[in-house]
């Protein structure tokens, strides 16, 4: 990779993707959430304690756009949980490498959860490790792993990170 591959323009384009993704979830526009991924993709929410010792178990593990859509359908129509909203704070986005149209990116996140009682609590903190590709001119996630530090998941996790 030549350093020149990581242009300011590319950085800003990647950051736009990361921000738009978080906003989509926080604004509860989850039906649009699968659109951030390529048709064949891998989305995982995995505890850091598993990831670090090479154990594969994840809290969510979707390997197709269809599975992402099924998550949303289940959340809207099948699963039972109390009203809740997420607020993502993103930081430290870094392009680690660029290989042709494939961009490897890492960033940090903190997700606050607010339920009907009005208290906002830190629900999940971790990092995203992403493989981003250009799909018909638009940047999309080919792989997105949310590797979380907060191994104590309060009550349940229904909305994607």
């Amino acid at each position, binding site marked *: 990779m030549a350093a020149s591959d990581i242009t300011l323009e590319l950085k800003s384009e990647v950051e736009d993707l990361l921000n738009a993704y978080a906003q989509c979830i926080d604004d509860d526009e989850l039906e649009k959430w699968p659109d951030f991924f390529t048709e064949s993709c891998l989305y995982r*929410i995995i*505890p850091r*304690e*598993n990831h670090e010792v090479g*154990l*594969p*178990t*994840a*809290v*969510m*593990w*979707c*390997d*197709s*756009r*269809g*599975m992402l*859509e*099924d*998550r949303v*359908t*289940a959340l809207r*129509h*099948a*699963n*039972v*949980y*109390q009203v809740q909203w997420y607020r993502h704070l993103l930081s430290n986005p870094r392009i680690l490498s660029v290989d042709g149209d494939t961009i490897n990116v890492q960033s940090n996140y903190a997700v606050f959860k607010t339920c009907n009682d009005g208290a906002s609590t830190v629900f999940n903190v971790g990092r995203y490790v992403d493989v981003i590709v250009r799909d018909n001119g638009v940047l999309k996630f080919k792989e997105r792993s949310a590797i979380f530090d907060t*191994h*104590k*998941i*309060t*009550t*349940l*996790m*229904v909305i994607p990170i």
Partner: protein
Amino acid sequence: MSTTPEHLKWPKEAGCTAVPYSVFNNQEVYELEQEKIYNGNTWHFLAADAEIPDKGSFKSTYIGDTPVVVTRGHDEEVYAWVNRCAHRGAEVCRERHGKVEDGVFACVYHQWAYDAKGDLRGVPFQRGLAGKGGMPKDFDKKQHSLRKVRVVVFHGTVFGTFGDNTPDIEEYMGEDVTYHFKRLMHKPIEILGTTRQYIAGNWKFYSENTKDPYHASLLHLFHATFGLYRSSQKGASIVNNDFHSVLWASSGTESAEALDDMKKDKLRTLQTGEYELKDPSLLKGQQEFDDGITLVILSLFPSLVLQQIQNTLAFRQILPKGKDEFELVWTYFGYKDDTEELRNIRLKQFNLIGPGGLISMEDGESTELCHNAIIRDGKYTNVIQMDGKEPVGNDHLVTEGLIRGLWKGYQKLMAF
């Protein structure tokens, strides 16, 4: 052991069909439980054998709210002890799991050193420094071991007990629970990972939940909608020794008559076809047991649930954190001889279980729903009468008999 105070005893008319809510919201009850149940003659899941594979391997866990470490000694035997230095009470082991190559567990505070068995091996400055200080001459290291936990390794699983009179593990489990335990643990397992769920409710609401097939098709809509499991499916509910139980079912075996009854009730359960999976590979499993059973919820009171749901296998460990909270530790596994294909099926189906499980996430929610609503009203009771009033199982899943068994056993143990 302390005697149960009169004011905590249940009214005469109460019993296994009407339990007073005080058992969930009273601090005295919680303290008594830790003494009579967790420090009593009960077996507790500590680890899968595979979690401590080598000499020097260890894992930190709990019995009730007491921190315990389980280790494998250099003699290959498994040991467990309370994680509290005999000197001044500090935590000896500060990691969740790992391996000590030299087999030494040293407290960081004053470096008192113990072996895997929990025996005290070294005390710094025992004879003083340059003739000054030191422990008294009659100080005997043998008298200052860590508090030991009796362990048994049963079919790849390590159980521990504080009780002096805890029965043999198979006798403790009972015949059917033992059968189903051995069925799921019939060959060496491979650990696939852990997740931890923290639930703001009393731990016994979760115990009830895992003995309650009645709720499965009514609360867990995902399950029912896709025909993974319905109350009308072939299955059974079994009670052993009051508070241990097994629920099992085979999917795809429903009687037409039962299905008609469900249609008449217009339950939201029956929405088959309304939601279709865009990617049905999630449910594409393998029939890995000859008996056709696709669901087993084995509940071993008070701290373990061993489960098979489709091709997912997991230990769920229930760890009380006070009367209002508990942690649920999920340890996921497959078998050592799994094909890559089967392993991948398991990993994908883990979407169904755990804290984000499409068919299990509501169990945390239901626990909190109950806990939120019972504040103060300790003298009121619940109603546990589905399928009669006896604390017994049946040849179907439309029952609360297992929950009645739980409370019958609990009442005896607690002398309520």
